[in-house]
């Protein structure tokens, strides 16, 4: 057993190189006489300077270049950049091309949510190191999860050409629309998957969730007609309701000394906020499908979720929904006549925002007369969540001071993994170190 923490000593816990997150980050924790003296969540993913290197490049190159910010959520970048360019150039993508965009985004949600929930986060609730250990005790669960994840990737493949950094998306639409036959091949597997994902959701709903609740400021997109994924206005549960282009007026990014990532916050009160699955669920619950709502209820979720550890269940509920949406779109799909809306470049400024699996991802570009990028700003979800992650960690540590260092460390890691932090994205993110005095 690791030494029991005595109340009057210094405890320093260090988590160097956090596992089961995408990218690298660390946590330093200093506890003195049972009080948190210092808590720092650091991102040490080296900066890759996307906003700087985009300058001078043609607007048409932004989707493929920004995609390389993150291999787990390339669609968030490809679509966010495309929409910002379309906004700058005054065009909009509607009808079947819009449906195809929603379909491929559903593919990204499915692939990313299942990877995180089943393979990266579930082991924490079972006290296991990884999904391979789950495979030893419950092979069927892991096999089902892998099949679900693969189906998400198959959607990316059919619509986009490949699962990581698809090649078929562009400003204005697609290079080539997929054939009806290939899209229809998704239908049977999707029918299986809706049922299978419900099973996984209910299994995860039965986990023992650490006791912790937070009154979050939830920020998400909201769309008039659908559960927002790739379009909408930016709203919060505290009455915010703005157009995407107003994002900079209400949100700011602070560069804090201990991190390579920028911390997002609300301008008003410089407050932390939450974006991602729980924020979406809380803000847009009314727009989920009946099946997703009933699955949520059966899995033990209320109308509003305040325990961040339950994000694993919310991710699976969103997976059920994304699978249903995919089935709906695939079943109705007819090949459109054109693959994209073409644009003559001109000067302008455009904004784009979509719901990446981890939360809202905002892009802004300023273009010159020839359509070359003069300025680029990208605000990824993990950067926005970073301040809230620190707030959650504080709360969780305060409630768990009795745990020994090893257990406290794991609990902190689990808290961070609630956010499925995509650290590669946020650099523009973990090692845990706890010091107890």
């Amino acid at each position: 057993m690791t030494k029991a923490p005595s109340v009057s000593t210094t405890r320093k816990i260090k988590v160097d190189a956090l596992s089961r997150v995408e990218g690298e980050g660390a946590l330093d924790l200093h506890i003195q006489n049972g009080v948190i003296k210092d808590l720092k969540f650091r991102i040490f993913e080296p900066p890759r300077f996307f906003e700087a290197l985009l300058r001078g490049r043609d607007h048409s190159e932004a989707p493929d270049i920004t995609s390389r910010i993150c291999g787990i959520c390339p669609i968030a970048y490809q679509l966010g950049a495309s929409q910002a360019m379309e906004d700058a150039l005054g065009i909009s993508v509607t009808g079947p091309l819009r449906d195809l965009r929603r379909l491929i985004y559903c593919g990204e949600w499915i692939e990313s949510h299942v990877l995180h929930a089943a393979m990266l986060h579930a082991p924490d609730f079972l006290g296991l190191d990884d999904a391979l250990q789950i495979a030893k005790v419950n092979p069927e669960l892991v096999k089902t999860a892998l099949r679900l994840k693969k189906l998400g990737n198959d959607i990316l493949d059919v619509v986009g050409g490949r699962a990581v950094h698809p090649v078929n998306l562009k400003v204005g639409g697609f290079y080539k629309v997929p054939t009806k036959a290939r899209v229809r091949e998704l239908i049977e597997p999707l029918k299986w998957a809706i049922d299978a994902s419900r099973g996984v959701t209910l299994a995860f709903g039965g986990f023992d969730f650490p006791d912790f609740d937070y009154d979050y400021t939830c920020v998400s997109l909201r769309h008039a007609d659908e559960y927002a994924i790739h379009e909408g206005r930016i709203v919060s549960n505290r009455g915010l309701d703005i157009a995407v282009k107003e994002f900079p007026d209400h949100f700011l990014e602070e560069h804090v000394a201990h991190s390579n990532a920028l911390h997002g916050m609300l301008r008003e009160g410089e407050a932390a906020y939450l974006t991602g699955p729980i924020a979406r669920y809380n803000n847009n619950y009314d727009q989920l499908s009946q099946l997703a709502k009933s699955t949520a209820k059966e899995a033990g979720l209320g109308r509003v979720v305040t325990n961040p550890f339950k994000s694993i269940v919310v991710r699976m509920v969103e997976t059920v929904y994304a699978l249903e949406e995919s089935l709906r779109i695939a079943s109705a799909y007819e090949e459109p006549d054109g693959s994209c809306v073409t644009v003559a470049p001109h000067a302008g400024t455009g904004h784009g925002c979509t719901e990446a699996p981890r939360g809202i991802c905002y892009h802004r570009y300023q273009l010159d007369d020839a359509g070359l990028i003069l300025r680029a700003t990208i605000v990824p979800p993990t950067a926005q969540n970073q301040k809230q992650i620190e707030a959650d960690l504080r709360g969780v540590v305060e409630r768990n001071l009795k745990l020994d260092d090893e257990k406290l460390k794991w609990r902190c890691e689990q808290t961070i993994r609630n956010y499925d932090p995509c650290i590669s994205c946020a650099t523009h993110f973990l090692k845990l170190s706890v010091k107890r005095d």
Partner: protein
Amino acid sequence: MAAQKISAKPKLAVWKFSSCDGCQLSLLGCEDELLAVADRVEFAYFLEATRAQIKGPYDISLVEGSITTAEEEERIHKIRRQSKVLITIGACATAGGIQALKNFADVDEFIRTVYAHPEFIKTLQKSTAIADHVKVDMELRGCPIDKKQLLEVLGAYLIGRKPNLPDQSQCMECKLAGTVCVMVAKGQACLGPVTHAGCGNLCPSFDRGCYGCFGPKELPNTSALAARLGELGLDDKQRRDLFRTFNTAAAPFMKESLNYD
């Protein structure tokens, strides 16, 4: 704990440097094969997938990402010392990645552009390939790598044969797949003639010119292609930028791009 038992399985480690995680994700993307792979090799160090960390030495190290910080410069040497076979995975590790665009720029200006406090940021002037620092036993191309190629390399290692990887150009993949040439038929700019095969003939089959994410093939005739692109109406900047993306620090692409600076 089971993970600490001595096992005869080869130990596999996956290391990350400056990258987007897309290439190591390709390993988790082998859904049909992942459990079978886990039967044959031990994931001794794979932070993106597991908390378990087993000490080296490692039989195979897969390295993703490029070297952009002094810490990374040091770490790659440590990893090399602990690895019997070191394989770079992807354009970042093999050719510096998209972040090597900074090699052409004033890095201090880049830092000031992105960060409010430039003094907090530590970065090297250039993004460099792993082979610029240590001996590399094998390279997998692509941004991202192709998972079939990754499985081929792991499979070949396990039975002790040479992996079967194509070394021809993307153009050849078009011919083999019967894809109509987008340059001849549609006048589109395409890097297929000078780009390493391996993606599975992706972009041209989507009516799009190859953008070179697998990097230069051996002895590419980049100047002949650049001349042809000029005839198709690309100006100097467009030609420069075409060679200056995910494999910008690969010598043939870098040299050609400099002709149009």
